[in-house]
C-alpha cells in the first residue's frame, strides 16, 4: 500500500536518512526500530508532511505522491500519533476528536454542530474501546485515555495508515495491553500501522514485520517468523564492535559519591543505588524516558528526592536546592542548554561568572576588572570562540555555548560533575574537546557522571556504564564487559 524508496534527508551537518527503503502492506503492522538518532522519527515526519525528503519517491497504492504538509498527509489517509500527545487539555473529548474540522450549522454564523460531534465521537470512541463521556475535559483523562482519544481522532478521519511513535512509553502495563488490543483490532479492520517502539517484547507480540534503521540507513528487516529480541538488538547495534578505548589506565580513588536507594518524582516506586569513585567517568546509558535526567536533577537539588540518601566522601549530605549542591562541589551540565544552562540574552562574561560571583565581589559589589579577567581566562582555557566576553551567549555556536556552561563550574572547585547529554547538537570538533576536558577533570580527581543516549559516547568515554530502564538500574557494566549489545540488552530489558 505504501512504498517509500531511496529516501534521503540531510540536515546541516548530519545526514539523517540515506536512501532508505520502507514499505507497508494493507492491514500490516510494521515495527520500526533503531537506536536514538537512527532516523526513525525523521522518516515518519516525512510521511506526516513535516519534512520534505531531499531525494526519493513515495508511492501510495501504486501512485506516486508528494506530501507537502500535514494537511496533505491527512488527505492521503495517513494519521500520526506523536510521542508528545497533541491534544488540548482544556477542551472536551468530542471537541478534541473533531478539532480543526468541526461540522458547522447556521449558515454564515458557522456555529459548531455540537450534537453531531457528540454522536460521532461516541461511535469512534467505541471503536477504540474508550468508554468515557465525550463531555469530559481532556485534562481529567489519564495519558493512556488521551492517547486513545488521539487514535479516535485519526480513525474519524478515515485513516488507512496510522503511525504511532513510542505509544507506550508513558503507559502502565495494563494500559499497554489495552493499546496492543486496539492495534490488533485496527489491523483486522484493514488499517495499516507503523509502530515505533523501544520495547522489543511488545514488538515481538505485535509486529508482522520489523524494519531496522541504523545511522539513517536500512540495517535489515525481519519477517514475522524471524522476529526475536536478540536479532533486533544485533541489527540495531550492527556496526563492528571495535574497541573505542584508548588503554587508559586511570587510577581511581576512593568512592566520591554514593547514591543510596534514591527515589525520584518520575519513578517514585523504584530506587537507584550507585557509587562513583573520584577520577572515574561513569556513563549512564538507557533509552529516552529511562529516568536518567531525573536522577541527575534530583542529585543536583532541582527536584526534591522522594527517598534515599546521597553520600559525598562518606558523609550524608542534605541537598534541597541547586545552591546546596553547588556549595558542596556537585555541578550539573544540564540536558537542555538553552533552557536551563544559559542566559542567552546576557554576555559570555555574565554567564561564566554567574555561580561564582561571590569570588569577584566585595560586600556585594562586583569587581568588574577581576570578573572580566576571570571570564577571559575561562574562555582561553576552554578555547571558547567568541569575539569578546561581552558577546551575547545566545549568538554563539552550540559547542561554544556548551563550553560556557562548563566554564561556569570549572572556576569553582568541582568534586562531582553531572553531565546530561554533554554533546547533543554539537559539532565533531567541539565534541572531542569536551571529551578531552572530561578526561582531564577525571584525572584531576573529579568524579564524573555522564548521561548519554549516544552509544559511541558512552562506550568511548566511560570507565563503567550504568544502564537504566524505566526508573530502574538494570545493570552496571565494567569496562571489559561493555559492548553495544550488552548495553542495549540492558536498556530494553
Amino acid at each position, binding site marked *: 500500500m505504501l512504498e517509500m524508496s531511496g529516501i534521503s534527508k540531510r540536515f546541516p551537518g548530519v545526514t539523517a536518512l540515506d536512501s532508505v527503503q520502507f514499505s507497508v502492506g494493507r492491514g500490516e503492522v510494521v515495527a520500526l526500530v533503531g537506536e536514538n538518532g537512527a532516523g526513525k522519527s525523521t522518516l515518519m515526519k516525512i510521511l506526516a508532511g513535516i519534512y520534505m525528503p531531499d531525494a526519493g519517491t513515495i508511492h501510495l497504492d501504486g501512485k506516486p505522491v508528494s506530501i507537502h504538509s500535514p494537511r496533505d498527509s491527512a488527505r492521503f489517509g495517513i494519521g500520526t500519533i506523536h510521542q508528545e500527545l497533541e491534544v488540548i487539555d482544556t477542551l472536551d473529548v468530542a471537541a478534541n476528536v473533531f478539532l480543526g474540522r468541526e461540522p458547522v450549522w447556521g449558515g454564515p454564523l458557522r456555529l459548531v454542530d455540537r450534537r453531531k460531534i457528540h454522536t460521532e465521537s461516541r461511535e469512534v470512541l467505541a471503536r477504540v474501546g474508550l468508554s468515557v463521556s465525550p463531555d469530559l475535559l481532556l485534562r481529567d483523562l489519564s495519558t493512556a485515555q488521551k492517547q486513545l482519544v488521539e487514535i479516535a481522532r485519526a480513525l474519524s478521519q478515515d485513516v488507512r495508515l496510522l503511525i504511532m511513535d513510542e505509544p507506550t512509553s508513558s503507559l502502565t502495563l495494563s494500559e499497554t495491553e489495552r493499546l496492543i488490543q486496539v492495534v490488533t483490532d485496527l489491523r483486522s479492520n484493514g488499517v495499516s500501522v507503523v509502530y515505533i517502539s523501544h520495547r522489543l517484547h511488545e514488538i515481538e507480540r505485535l509486529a508482522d514485520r520489523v524494519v531496522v534503521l541504523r545511522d539513517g540507513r536500512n540495517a535489515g528487516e525481519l519477517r514475522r517468523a524471524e522476529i526475536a529480541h536478540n536479532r533486533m538488538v544485533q541489527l540495531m547495534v550492527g556496526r563492528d564492535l571495535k574497541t573505542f578505548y584508548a588503554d587508559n589506565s586511570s587510577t581511581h580513588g576512593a568512592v566520591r559519591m554514593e547514591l543510596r536507594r534514591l527515589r525520584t518524582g518520575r519513578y517514585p516506586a523504584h530506587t537507584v543505588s550507585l557509587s562513583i569513585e573520584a577520577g572515574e567517568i561513569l556513563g549512564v546509558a538507557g533509552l529516552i524516558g529511562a529516568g536518567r535526567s531525573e536522577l541527575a536533577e534530583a542529585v*543536583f537539588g*532541582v527536584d526534591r528526592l522522594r527517598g534515599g540518601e546521597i553520600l559525598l566522601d562518606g558523609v550524608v549530605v542534605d541537598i534541597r*536546592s*541547586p*545552591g546546596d*549542591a*553547588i*556549595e558542596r562541589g556537585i555541578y*550539573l551540565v*544540564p540536558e537542555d542548554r538553552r*533552557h*536551563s*544552562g*544559559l*542566559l*542567552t*540574552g*546576557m554576555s559570555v562574561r*555574565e554567564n561564566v561568572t*554567574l*555561580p561564582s*560571583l*561571590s569570588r569577584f*565581589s566585595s560586600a*556585594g*559589589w*562586583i569587581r*568588574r576588572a577581576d570578573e572580566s579577567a576571570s571570564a577571559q581566562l575561562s574562555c582561553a582555557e576552554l578555547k571558547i570562540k567568541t569575539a569578546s566576553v561581552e558577546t551575547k551567549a545566545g549568538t554563539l555556536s552550540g559547542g561554544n555555548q556548551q563550553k560556557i556552561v562548563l566554564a*561556569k563550574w570549572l572556576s569553582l572547585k568541582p568534586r562531582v560533575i553531572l553531565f546530561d547529554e554533554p554533546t547533543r547538537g554539537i559539532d565533531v570538533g567541539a565534541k572531542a574537546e569536551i571529551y578531552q576536558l572530561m578526561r582531564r577533570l577525571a584525572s584531576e580527581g573529579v568524579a564524573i557522571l555522564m548521561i548519554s543516549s549516544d552509544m559511541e559516547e558512552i562506550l568511548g568515554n566511560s570507565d563503567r556504564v550504568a544502564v537504566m530502564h524505566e526508573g530502574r538500574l538494570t545493570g552496571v557494566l565494567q569496562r571489559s564487559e561493555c559492548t553495544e549489545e550488552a548495553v542495549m540488552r540492558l536498556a530494553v530489558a
Partner: protein
Amino acid sequence: MRKELGILTLLAVLCILVAALNPQFLSSANIQNTSRLIGTYGIFSIGVGIVIITGGIDLSVGSMFALLGVLLSLMLTQWHWPPLFAVAVVLALGSFLGGIHGFLITRLGLQPFLVTLCGLLLYRGLARYIASDAVQGFGAGAGFEWLRDFTTGSVGRVPMPFILMIAVAAIMWVVLHRSVYGRYLFAVGQNEEAARYSGINSRRVIASAYIISGFLAAAAAILLAFYTNSVAPSSHGSFYELYAIAAAVLGGCSLRGGEGSILGIVAGTALLQVLRNLVNLLDIPSSLDFAVMGAVILIGVIADQVLRSKR
C-alpha cells in the same frame, strides 16, 4: 545603551521643540514644577522597573498611594503621631505590602499581574473605606511643618523630590548594574530556570524586587500626598502604575524581563512628564493628555521594533 541613547535623544528633541514653540517651557517656575514631578514619578517608576526586569509587573502602586496617603494624613492630623514615626510606618507598610505580593507570587506561584491587580482593587477600596470616601487633608500642618517643608521644599532651586530621586537612582544604579544582587535580578528575569540551575535562590530574588517596589512606592506616596496637599481616596494616584510601566518600557525594559536600566527608566519618566507639560504649554486640550502620551509611546515602540527587525 542604544535604547537609552534613543530615548535621551527623543527627550532632547522634544524639549527643544516645546521650548521653541513656547519659551514659557524654560521659565524657572515651569522647570521647577516639571522636575518636581519627574522626581516623584521617577522614584516609584524605578521600583516598578526593577519588578519588570525580573519578568514581573506591579499594578498596585497607584492604589498604594491612596491607601498610604490616607493613612499618613490620619497619623499626622488625627492621631498626632510624631512625623518621623509616621514616615517610618508608611515606608514599612509599603515594603510589607510588597513583601506579600512577593510571597504570593513566589511561594504560591500566582501570576504577578493577578496578584498586583488584586492589590490595586483592594488598596483603593480600603483607602476609600478608611477615609469614609472623604478627602483627607493636612490642614495647617501643625506639628509636622518640617516634614511638609522638607518634602515640598527645594535645595537652592532644585526641588526636594528631584534630589531624592537622583539619590534613589544613584543607589539603585549601583545595586542594579554593579552588585551581585543586581546581576541576579537580571538573571532571574532572563531565564529563571537557568538562574536556579546556577544556584541562585530565584524565589528570594524575585520576592525582594516587590519589596523594593513597595518601599519606593511608599516613599513616593509621602511626596505625592504633600504635593497635592490633600488625598481624595477615590482618585488619588489612580493610573499612576501605568505611568511607571510606560516609563520603564520607554526606557528599554522588556516586559519579558531581563532587560532594562535605571538611566532608561529615569529618562522614560522625564519624557512622559515633558509630554504632559507639552500638552499644557501648547494649549492642546488637556482632555487629550492621555491620547498624546499613548500615541508617543506607540510610535516609540513601533520605531524600536522596526529598527530591531532591520538589523
